[in-house]
């Protein structure tokens, strides 16, 4: 899932200060799971900002709402009136949600309330860790199901670097060496021969290095006729 973190509240308060009417919009998907922008976080933020405004004597109307998935136009459309009725929208979703609202209502101001961080998984309660960078060409079937691109600080493809010591990464001694983990996993799976196979230099054009990516699936796309709402042709 996408893991994000709330921006510092002083930064948020500063962004919103010039505006009289603010709508804070959360998202019930990834950012709710990582406790950054779900219903509860929206309520807490709205309350905290109201307390701040009361303290500063600032007249500002703030209200909060939450949608199922802010990155999908259909869900955002349901609260269109609320968005357009405000001077500014603070998105408590990942950057995708904020940009969806921004693209749908380009004249309307939409600010980010979160810093979008990574593709991660919940390791334990309150801990999320990065496991994928979305490089566009997955190779984890050859690395025991562990991604060396995301989990190795140097994204090494053919074994550990010289800085790996005692199963730890030289970049951060708290972090396990991804290649030590890959070795263990392949050994467990009785596939250690894979560690000796050479992976050629990676083609990064499938990653962000190739520019903005757009995925399409022809069979799922609507025909121009369908887009006009005239049914299946």
């Amino acid at each position: 899932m996408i893991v994000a973190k709330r921006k510092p509240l002083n930064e948020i308060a500063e962004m919103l200060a010039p505006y009289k009417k603010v709508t804070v919009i959360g998202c019930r998907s990834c950012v709710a799971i990582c406790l950054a922008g779900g219903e509860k976080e929206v309520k807490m933020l709205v309350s905290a900002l109201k307390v701040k405004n009361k303290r500063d004597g600032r007249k500002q109307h703030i209200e909060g709402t939450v949608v199922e998935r802010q990155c999908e136009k259909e869900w955002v459309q349901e609260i269109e009136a609320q968005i357009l009725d405000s001077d500014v929208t603070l998105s408590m979703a990942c950057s995708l949600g904020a940009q969806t609202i921004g693209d749908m209502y380009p004249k309307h101001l939409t600010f980010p309330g979160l810093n979008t961080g990574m593709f991660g998984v919940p390791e334990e309660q309150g801990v999320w860790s990065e496991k994928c960078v979305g490089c566009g060409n997955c190779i984890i079937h050859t690395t025991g199901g562990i991604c060396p691109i995301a989990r190795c600080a140097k994204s090494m493809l053919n074994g550990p670097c010289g800085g790996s010591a005692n199963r730890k990464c030289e970049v951060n001694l708290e972090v396990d060496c991804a290649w030590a983990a890959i070795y263990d996993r392949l050994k467990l799976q009785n596939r250690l021969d894979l560690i000796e196979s050479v992976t050629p230099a990676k083609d990064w054009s499938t990653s962000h290095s190739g520019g903005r990516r757009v995925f399409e699936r022809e069979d799922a796309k609507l025909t121009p006729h369908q887009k006009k709402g005239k049914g299946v042709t």
Partner: protein
Amino acid sequence: MPDTRPKIVGFCCERHGMDAAVLAARSGKQFEASVRLVQVPCTGRVDGMHILRALEDGADAVFVLGCLEKNCYYDTGSIEGRKRVGYVKQMLSELGLEKERVEMFNAASSNSWVFPEIVAKMVEVVKKFGPIGGEKR
């Protein structure tokens, strides 16, 4: 005549926290504050949202009173409560507000002296910083 005393909200667990408050109240002690108590099953149930809502709705200070940490009826409830209070304190600090307005306390039900001390401490905080959004009372 309006009540100009500091407005304090206390979330007390129904075990030791509330018992300590009731014990103090039975002693007939008068407080320098308007204290509203909210009984909760356990301080582990108190969420940052509840604390902030109390401040938003007019409280000048909020405290959470739970069992002693090594004697919590629900084992780790008062530890959870302390963590939530800590998070709200961090939020208040980020906004340039006084984090002292929110505190976590622990008591055993037989500690009759604890509750008056808590109220006195929170009254001091409000006297020092004034009410939220107003002149010092």
